[in-house]
């Protein structure tokens, strides 16, 4: 059956297959009691990082713009989603509260995506990267100074300290500045994580292989040419950027609900960089690569624990060595030869495959 599929569909099926296969494998191992605590504890963060990496790859790989503030979207998603969950879980059924948390987290992150996406239209390259970095830092600093409380009079907000909230005695501080949100009931599970990974992959793979996706890639390859044939640049750029932000927000909620405390400091520039490392190492524009790289690189520092003090040193060296190995000119040349061959095959078999596509649909 695989043989008859369109190349891109086949590739998508393999990617999803890897994710589902991983899930099944983990369930079997877990049932057999063969999973270590260490590994099972990392499953949810792995899912969150996979979603982050896949969504960032949409910006970096498909849109071709460097973003250094992806963790900022994760942060706003995490805070808004967690707030909704904390408030809702008291008086609504658990699944509904959870669903609402993910929806709100994604929506708020998407809203910020639109806000940040507007400068995307004016800037490019390293200047755009700086604006996204600035966005991430602004989010971190504001959330660090953000105090939100609730009492019988409603919500209170301050950017100074929790005393300035003027809460009544029975009031409850929801976000406590640098302490963030504490006492979150752990709600994320591996199953929820995998479902979200699959949804993310389905949406983004579909977008990439759709008309819109081709337009986005056309903009990446040559903006002026794309404009000249009438591709609405603004619309498609914003579409890619906002989609990417929405999923980062969802990943943020997934991540936050896995721990009992949530602080803004977590989503700093280093986290953005970490996600970028996943994307670059997995291959820019290669979603399956992002999935694998995110999973492997999340587990890697844990595997290095036996190295004691040299752990992060080794991690840094592995990063440099793998990067050089992966991206040195010879390897690039090899990849170009391979992709050139694929493209040729694509072009040759296009007519036949279009027919197949109709059949499949």
């Amino acid at each position, binding site marked *: 059956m695989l043989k008859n599929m369109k190349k891109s569909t086949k590739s998508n099926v393999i990617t999803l297959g890897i994710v589902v296969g991983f899930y099944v494998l983990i369930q079997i191992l877990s049932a057999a009691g063969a999973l270590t605590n260490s590994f099972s504890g990392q499953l949810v963060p792995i899912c969150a990082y996979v979603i982050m990496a896949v969504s960032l790859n949409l910006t970096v790989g498909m849109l071709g713009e460097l973003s250094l503030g992806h963790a900022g979207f994760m942060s706003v998603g995490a805070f808004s989603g967690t707030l909704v969950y904390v408030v809702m879980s008291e008086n609504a059924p658990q699944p509904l509260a959870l669903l609402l948390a993910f929806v709100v987290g994604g929506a708020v992150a998407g809203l910020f995506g639109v806000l940040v996406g507007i400068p995307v239209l004016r800037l490019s390259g390293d200047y755009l990267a700086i604006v996204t970095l600035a966005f991430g830092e602004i989010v971190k600093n504001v959330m660090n100074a953000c105090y939100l409380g609730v009492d019988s009079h409603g919500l209170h907000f301050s950017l100074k300290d929790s005393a300035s909230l003027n809460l009544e005695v029975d009031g409850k501080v929801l976000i406590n500045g640098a*302490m963030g949100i504490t006492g979150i009931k752990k709600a994320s599970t591996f199953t929820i994580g995998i479902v979200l990974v699959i949804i993310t992959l389905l949406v983004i793979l579909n977008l990439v292989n759709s008309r819109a996706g081709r337009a986005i890639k056309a903009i990446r390859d040559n903006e002026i040419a794309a404009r000249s044939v009438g591709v609405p640049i603004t619309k498609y750029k914003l579409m890619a950027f906002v989609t990417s932000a929405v999923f980062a927000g969802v990943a943020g909620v997934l991540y936050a609900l896995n721990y009992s*405390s949530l602080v803004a400091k977590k989503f700093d520039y280093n986290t953005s960089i970490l996600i970028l490392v996943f994307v670059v190492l997995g291959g820019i524009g290669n979603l399956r690569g992002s999935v694998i790289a995110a999973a492997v690189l999340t587990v890697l520092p844990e595997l*290095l624990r036996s190295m004691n003090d*040299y752990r992060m040193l080794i991690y840094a060296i592995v990063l440099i060595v793998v990067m050089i190995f992966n991206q040195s000119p010879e390897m690039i040349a090899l990849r170009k030869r391979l992709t050139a061959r694929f493209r040729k095959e694509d072009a040759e078999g296009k007519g036949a495959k279009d027919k197949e596509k109709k059949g499949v649909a």
Partner: protein
Amino acid sequence: MKKLVSSVLAASMVLSLAACGSSASTDTASSSEAASTSTAATAEAAGEGSGAYTGTPIKIGGIGPVTGGAAIYGQAVKNAEELAVKEINAANGSDVFEWKFEDDEHDAEKSVNAYNTLKDWGLQVLAGPVTTTPSIAVAAETANDNLFMMTPSASAPAVIESGDNVFQICFTDPNQGVASADYIAENKLGTKVGIIYDSSDAYSSGIYEKFKAEAAAKNLEIVTAEAFTADNKSDLSTQVAKCQQAGADLVFLPIYYQEASQILIAANKSGYAPVFFGCDGMDGILTIEGFDTSLAEGLMLLTPFAADAQDEKTQAFVSAYKEAYGDTPNQFAADAYDVVYAIYQAAVAGGINGDMDASDVCDALKAQFTSMTFDGLTGDGMTWDASGAVSKAPKAVVIKDGAYAAM
């Protein structure tokens, strides 16, 4: 395909490196043997019950940042825990504790990972984590597993609120803020108080808020409260200048000693000389390499531990620590050292054995901790209530001629 090759390559590298890693770690263990034999004498001198424990060793684990920006705190705790475990084992004759320490980079996610790694190792008692945010995350996990956790230094109330299995040996932040305000008010150290605190740090902002509330109750006038964050702490001269402009005659510094040293230097440069008053995080300021300690002259701090206190226990600890690690221990180290000894005392008194499962160990320790009294480096007659908070008396010291003097 290439992706696969590279990930296989990375994985194989990791494996081979991990292999060298384990041999390296045995090396370090044997090299620090020397330290343990030299400190054994001091432990026996301290007179902890020799040979009191005969069962299977209890697996005790520590978690803290030993890499990254907060590494000084984690490293101090790691060293002190190792020292305490070695002393106890040597004094006892047979091993009481088997000890392991994991890095968390001051990050909640990594800290939970570290905790899970320790669980795979067979963890029965947790002596950590070191910093507040990771501790809150790990505390929820330990509460879930009913595994006894005692943090040396995570002082926020939210840490012990996670469950009745979670204990602190340090003062809670509110406690410190209140005690500082009371002390300043009672001794009339200043009338116009300025505050400089780290708003991006849970510890610092926690103390600040309680201090502010208590100061209002004690009629202390707070003329200005200036914050800095982890990102802009390299330049603190503006905060100092604002305190000066506001006419503060006492500046309260609920912050760690490295930033405090910068504030003292900045104040000196601009010729501003109020009374400076700090908390336990200030301890260590005299040990900064290259710091002109004359600038700290007259600095007051409320701390449970002072490295140059004259009592026998502190001196034995400081000299053993210096010998093994080449540094003067700070209050993080002292707190961690006390955690291990307190657990030891409770384990012996509660008849705990390494054969018991973690949950039973936890229940027995909980019963002991809420009923026992412990004398340690950071205070005599420490007791714990069911919430897990410690009750001990803060000591106020002033820096005179480059050393701590009691007030």
